[in-house]
């Protein structure tokens, strides 16, 4: 299984963490960010989410984030999984795992990676509310 993936199906956090931890016995701290589907966005009740991506480019950007994280932070390994397609409220959307000898490096790399993912990865969220379906513009 690849450390960086975009997929329709849900992921198993235990398995993803094991995959990252398998990189080295020197890993002492593993920091994970899990994004989940919230029920409310800007005051609107959300009933369903739908994610679209630019196949090829989105995967490439996630790979690039992993490689830059490994280069710029003192971490041992990083895994990134993002789901696409329909996602219910409460379900998992994205998982970023940063593993390091020491926890501070893992925290910094994980926090950077999710911010960078939102900034450069061509993935779009459509929210379904009572008023209809809206493509979200996080950075208008």
């Amino acid at each position, binding site marked *: 299984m690849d450390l960086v993936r975009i997929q329709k199906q849900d992921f198993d956090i235990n398995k993803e963490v094991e995959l990252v931890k398998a990189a080295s016995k020197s890993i002492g701290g593993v920091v994970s960010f899990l994004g989940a589907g919230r029920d409310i966005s800007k005051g609107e009740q959300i009933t369903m989410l739908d*994610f679209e991506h630019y196949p090829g480019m989105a995967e490439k950007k996630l790979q690039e984030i992993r490689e830059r994280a490994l280069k710029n932070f003192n971490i041992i390994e990083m895994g990134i999984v993002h789901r696409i397609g329909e996602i219910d409220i409460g379900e998992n959307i994205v998982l970023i795992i940063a593993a390091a000898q020491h926890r501070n490096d893992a925290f910094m790399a994980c926090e950077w990676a999710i911010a960078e993912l939102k900034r450069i990865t061509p993935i*779009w969220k459509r929210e379904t509310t009572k008023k209809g379906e809206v493509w979200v*513009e996080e950075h208008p």
Partner: protein
Amino acid sequence: MIKVRFFAMLKNKTGKEEVNLSVPDNITLEKLKAILKNEFPAIAEFIERKSIMISVNQEFATNTTIIKDGDEVALLPPFSGG
């Protein structure tokens, strides 16, 4: 001939996922944008807005990027992954 791809709200606005377009060879992205605004008036204002990014062959491009025959150009509305 280049391929132009539309994502998310831009796909809705144009009613298209991708279009093959004949454009002069080796033009800049700046010139291509003017062509696209004429070709797809429904999204002209989005192409104008800075929040829309454009990729060429799956890499972010700037106004000076040269567009060659066979290139894949994609119009990318603000990302909302994560």
